[in-house]
């Protein structure tokens, strides 16, 4: 327990330490998904890979966008674009709590001085048709992570169960680095010849996106894109499993799922533009969920989803 970890000095050092830590614990360190998503959970490495029987262990940073949270870079804690660190291990190992606590040590939290607590918090994603049980993890009263045992995703029971960890990187890093305003946080080493703060990198983009998200984004275009993404997703999944050109079984789950993600993000943008009424909200969420379910149904028909050629017989 005498782990004397030197405190990290920058945002990126915390990310690098998490990458190194989870790599050392056997996770495949993936890269962010190259689409706009609301949370790390939307990355197919979590949503789709938590389905089916195949073992899985992955860790990655995921840039996440929540248009309604934009505050023009002025609020010390709120951003419309921020980073999550996501770990998904299937089946959840028996020592997942200890592994998680190890990651906090690795990023400089001294367990002998801080108060870490696991406080009940059941997770549910109506858009993904997913839920799980777990906790929010508190460090001295601050929520630093979500810890969830997935029970259902896309309407499918999870067998085996995945353990999911989600760290809100900015908030966690601000706490460790003792910074009060996110824009003041050192992004790279403050001693570097060209030291950059979080604000140097993101203050301007927060302003730009806040203005666009709230006042400028073309809602007609967005509404049309939503419909198109929805139609495309369903069309892709309606294709025959066997590809007529190669003769191979190719179910195009990931391209279809991309459309589902797209629809979800467009919905978030429309929400930020304030053009979705309370009653419509539920309907839109239901439509995205329907897509997510169809993708989940298709994924378990693929090899990565645990399908075996014998199943076809």
């Amino acid at each position, binding site marked *: 327990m005498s782990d004397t970890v030197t405190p990290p000095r920058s945002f990126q050092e915390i990310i690098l330490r998490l990458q190194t830590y989870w790599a050392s614990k056997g996770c495949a360190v993936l890269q962010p998904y190259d689409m706009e998503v609301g949370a790390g959970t939307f990355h197919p490495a979590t949503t789709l890979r938590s389905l089916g029987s195949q073992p899985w262990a992955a860790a990655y940073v995921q840039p996440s966008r929540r248009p309604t949270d934009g505050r023009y870079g002025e609020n010390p804690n709120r951003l419309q674009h921020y980073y999550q660190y996501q770990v998904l291990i299937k089946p959840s190992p028996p020592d997942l709590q200890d592994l998680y606590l190890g990651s906090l040590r690795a990023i400089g939290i001294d367990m002998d001085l801080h108060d870490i*607590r*696991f406080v*009940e918090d059941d997770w549910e994603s109506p858009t993904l048709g997913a839920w*799980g049980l777990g906790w929010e993890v508190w460090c*001295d009263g601050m929520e630093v992570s979500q810890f969830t045992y997935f029970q259902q995703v896309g309407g499918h029971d999870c067998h085996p*169960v995945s353990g999911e960890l989600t760290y809100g990187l900015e908030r966690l890093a601000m706490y460790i680095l003792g910074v009060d305003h996110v824009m003041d946080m050192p992004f790279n080493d403050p001693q570097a010849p060209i030291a950059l703060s979080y604000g140097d990198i993101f203050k301007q983009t927060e302003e730009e996106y806040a203005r666009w998200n709230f006042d400028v984004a073309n809602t007609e275009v967005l509404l049309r894109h939503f419909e198109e993404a929805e139609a495309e997703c369903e069309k892709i999944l309606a294709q025959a499993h066997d590809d007529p050109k190669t003769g191979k079984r190719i179910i195009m789950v990931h391209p279809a799922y991309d459309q589902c993600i797209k629809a979800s993000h467009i919905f978030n943008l429309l929400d930020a533009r304030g053009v979705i*009424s309370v009653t419509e909200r539920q309907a839109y969420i239901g439509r995205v969920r329907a897509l997510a379910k169809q993708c989940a149904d298709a994924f378990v028909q693929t090899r990565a989803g645990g399908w075996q050629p014998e199943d076809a017989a």
Partner: protein
Amino acid sequence: MPDLLIELFSEEIPARMQKRAGEDLQKLVTNGLVEAGLTYASAAAFTTPRRLTLTVEGLLDQSPTTREERKGPKADAPEKAIEGFLRGAGLTRDQVEERETPKGNVLFAVIEKPGRPAAEIIAEVLEATIRNFPWPKSMRWGSAPLKWVRPLHSILCILTDEAGHSVVPGEVDGITFGDTTEGHRFMAPGRFPVTSFDDYSAKLTRAHVVLDASERADTIWNDATNAAFANGLEVVEDKGLLAEVAGLVEWPVVLMGKIGDDFLDLPPEVLQTSMKEHQKFFSVRNPKTGRIERFITVANRETADNGVTILAGNEKVLSARLADAKFFWENDLRTVREVGLEGMAKPLADVTFHNKLGSQAERVARIEALARELAPVVGAKPDLAAEAARIAKADLASEMVYEFPELQGIMGKYYAEAAGHNDGVPEACEEHYSPLGPSDDVPTAPVSVAVALADKLDTLTGFWAIEEKPTGSKDPYALRRAALGIIRLVLDNKLALALKNAFAARIGLHVAMLAESTSSDECEDLEKNLRLDADFQSKFDAIKADREGVLHSFGFNDVGSKTLPLASDLLAFFHDRLKVYLRDQGIRHDIIDACIAMPNNDDLTLLVKRARALSETLATDDGENLTQGFKRANNILTQAEEADGVEYSYGADIKFAEEPQETALFEALDTAEAKIAPAMKEQDFAAAMSAMATLRGPIDAFFEAVQINADNQTVRRNRLNLLSRIRTLCLSVADLTKVEG
């Protein structure tokens, strides 16, 4: 006699589930043991965030041997019968006895079930308990099929007697029973073995775990109040929070922190709610000023720096939270300043109250109209009541209430004050949700009462109009609570309000609005003419007559046909709620029924006044016997009327009286009638009923001395008509046929 110790060690159990889980563990295991014949002296359960523990003392070391004797067929019965008997008993022919009986030789089987060792029974019972544990929500983890509230890591199960302890052999899905456990996650990591409950609890204490939740709660409360007291402050009591926090820690350490100066001017309710909901902090108040100045947080460990780091972190998190709250507060105040509460309420037009009952804004408009109409009944100025109703729900559109829904009403009060109201409107904003339960305070300020009644009346008539009434245990819109709210508002404020007309007027409007075919003309007419205090049917007929020659829509006709049955049904619902409410105050349901059967039963103040008077009268000797006398008179009369096919209702004449007791009854009735009629006019039920009770003597004496069915038909008819006077007089006070006994 051995003692049993069980500990189910898991990842963190939600605080709100722990207490019940401890009770369930004790119940399931001890019931299982007793069913299998293992009795015990005492048992107790304990819970911490990571463990459910059960200790059972003085357990039998094995279940007793049982012996059962079964009588079978005769020894010379057919082979098949004997075979069947042997199969049933699980014995062979040479294992059963042949006994001489008066009927000849008969086979007897003696089945002996040997006792089983405690360990064997315990293993079975514990496995069944774990597999069937009634968690409100359970989960799977890893690849195992087992379900538990969170991953289950180890099962400690030992029997201890003078000779020492032994592990009960057993396992559940790969988790083998053992004799080890763990202490505090951070302060004493690592497993250790235990030999008995005493050893277990002593070692846990050393390993920084307080096993008993109530001990943890006591420690927290004592340390918190001491810390506050030392600074001349007091902790705001919150039993729910105390229980929850005691379920979040195994080793409670109380720390008192400061609230930034910037935030001390926030309303105390805001500070309290934000600290409690987000941070699970206790509020610490300055008793002199009533302000919240500090907070108490409960950490799960001691640290080398005495909690300095932990407290600094908590203060920082709180500052961020309160900065949000202050931001909402200031934005809301700015909104009030710039556009007023009406402006703040604008977005309610886009908030659906219920998909059939329209938006919150539409609902507010209805409540406003209602409050205006109700104002004279409660002694409020109509304009003021209407204004209060218009802004009472504005805070639902405030940023603060969006963040903290539980502050609805309270924020309304602050914002109404900020808008310059000092006329009862701020109080109405806060109090119009009241009373929320049977023991909640009932508003008495006229404006508050008007809006509170209007709010609930709109809800109830609306849901009755769309026929979404509570069923069984399902009451998602809390309609029972709303009805009880109206009952208490009416009774406590002694309001004279004829509910049935009020129900009908509003249900009628709801029905009209709901039907798509209703024209706007028709709706307008109904809105203008249906009044809370006017008879629905005559008003409706008048509107219909005025619209002579215009084709009525289906919706309009619906109003005519559906409204009164729905209003009657709603009134019956109120009467049921009233019975429950008065039963708790010691008034019997049959007494209430006797009063409900009387006219004006929708005026609850009158109804309850009558019921109380009747209840008091029936509690006296005279009252109770009068009921008997009344029933006797009523029975004789009813039978005679049925037999003779006539109604004896008029014409008893004293000149046909033969017996002195008969004459006396005539006179007593005259006297009583002279008192009852004016008393009833004055609604002085107590006077009327005591006059009625004076009839007890004369009626008893009359029945004692007089034969009703006299041979002389004139005398007989005269006596029956006399009974009819008793009946009529008593029924004018209350329907005594409904009184039991």
